């Protein structure tokens, strides 16, 4: 395969999603949380997400209740993902038990396991080959944030593909993954749970970055990342 060694926050495969496209989408999502998105962008952003017409609501209801996950077993989380359709924890109750092998028939990609740098272009190509609408769950600590192995060989999923739900755990219990899938279902059907700032009414407590002095910059015991101990 032509391994295009571009800096890995971009994507190796073809497709209009260029690297800065994710970065913009991520930054916009973050700004949304902070509530400082200009008007017309906010309009376009909401339009893309919120379903207004009843036909869309019906379509979202149908899609939410019949997500076909693509069998994407990478490592240990795959074994826990495999026990999802098992007898004890039957996700057939929610309509997700049809694990499809090819990306053409799947609309949910569960990244279960560690994504190594040799596997990243393959994962990105498979995500490109999935048909719209498609969603991605980063299962386990390794695909969400390199998890236990913060070293040269692992790439967090956010670096090269948009992820909808992160399921924490190493490996997460099957119930945790099922909870993640149900959260994704709520997100698809338009009633995504509000962020923690709204739930706890913590608006206005965002850290002020930039010119204000970094909190704890000169505190004795606060080590900046990378420093082992203060000189």
């Amino acid at each position, binding site marked *: 395969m032509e391994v295009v060694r571009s800096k890995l926050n971009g994507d190796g495969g*073809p497709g209009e999603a260029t690297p800065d496209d994710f970065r913009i989408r991520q930054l916009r999502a973050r700004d949304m949380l902070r509530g400082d998105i200009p008007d017309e962008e906010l309009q376009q952003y909401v339009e893309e997400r919120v379903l207004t017409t009843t036909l869309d609501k019906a379509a979202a209801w149908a899609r939410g209740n019949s997500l076909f996950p693509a069998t994407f077993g990478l490592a240990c989380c795959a074994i826990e993902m495999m026990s999802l359709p098992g007898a004890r924890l039957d996700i057939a109750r929610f309509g997700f038990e049809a694990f499809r092998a090819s990306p053409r028939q799947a609309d949910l990609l569960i990244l279960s396991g560690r994504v190594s740098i040799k596997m990243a272009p393959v994962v990105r190509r498979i995500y*490109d*080959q999935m048909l719209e609408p498609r969603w991605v769950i980063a299962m386990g600590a390794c695909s969400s944030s390199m998890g236990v192995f913060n070293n040269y060989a692992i790439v967090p999923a956010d670096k090269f593909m948009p992820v909808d739900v992160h399921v924490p755990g190493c490996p997460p219990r099957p119930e945790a993954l099922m909870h993640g899938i149900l959260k994704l279902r709520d997100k698809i059907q338009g009633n995504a749970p509000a962020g923690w700032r709204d739930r706890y009414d913590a608006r206005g407590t965002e850290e002020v970055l930039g010119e204000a002095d970094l909190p704890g910059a000169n505190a004795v015991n606060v080590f900046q990342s990378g420093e082992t101990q203060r000189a």
Partner: protein
Amino acid sequence: MLTSYGPAIVFLAIGLIVATAFGMAPRLLGPRRAAASRQSQLTPYECGLPSEVTRNFRFGISFYLIAMLFILFDIEVIFLYPIAVQLRAFGTFALVETSVFIALLMVGFGYVWRRGALEWK
């Protein structure tokens, strides 16, 4: 003359209408995607890697052979269904005719078996 074929024509028309409706519906209702993102969805899927199998790859003859044999003997079975359902109504003549039909095909089957076309080569 036309009336006797009326139901058939109506049946055909409805079939056509439903087919085109289902064909056009995604184009109208579905979301419009940028051509680029669709382009990546058209690339052949080969386990996540760029596929190297050229478009004009000439497949072996054995696949074609198996397909022909399947069509021959499978269609034969399909022909037997209507006869089997209404055998009493058709009378003994149909029984004789079907058994001749099956005998002929058995000759073909014997020939194919002896020539070894059934073993995969």
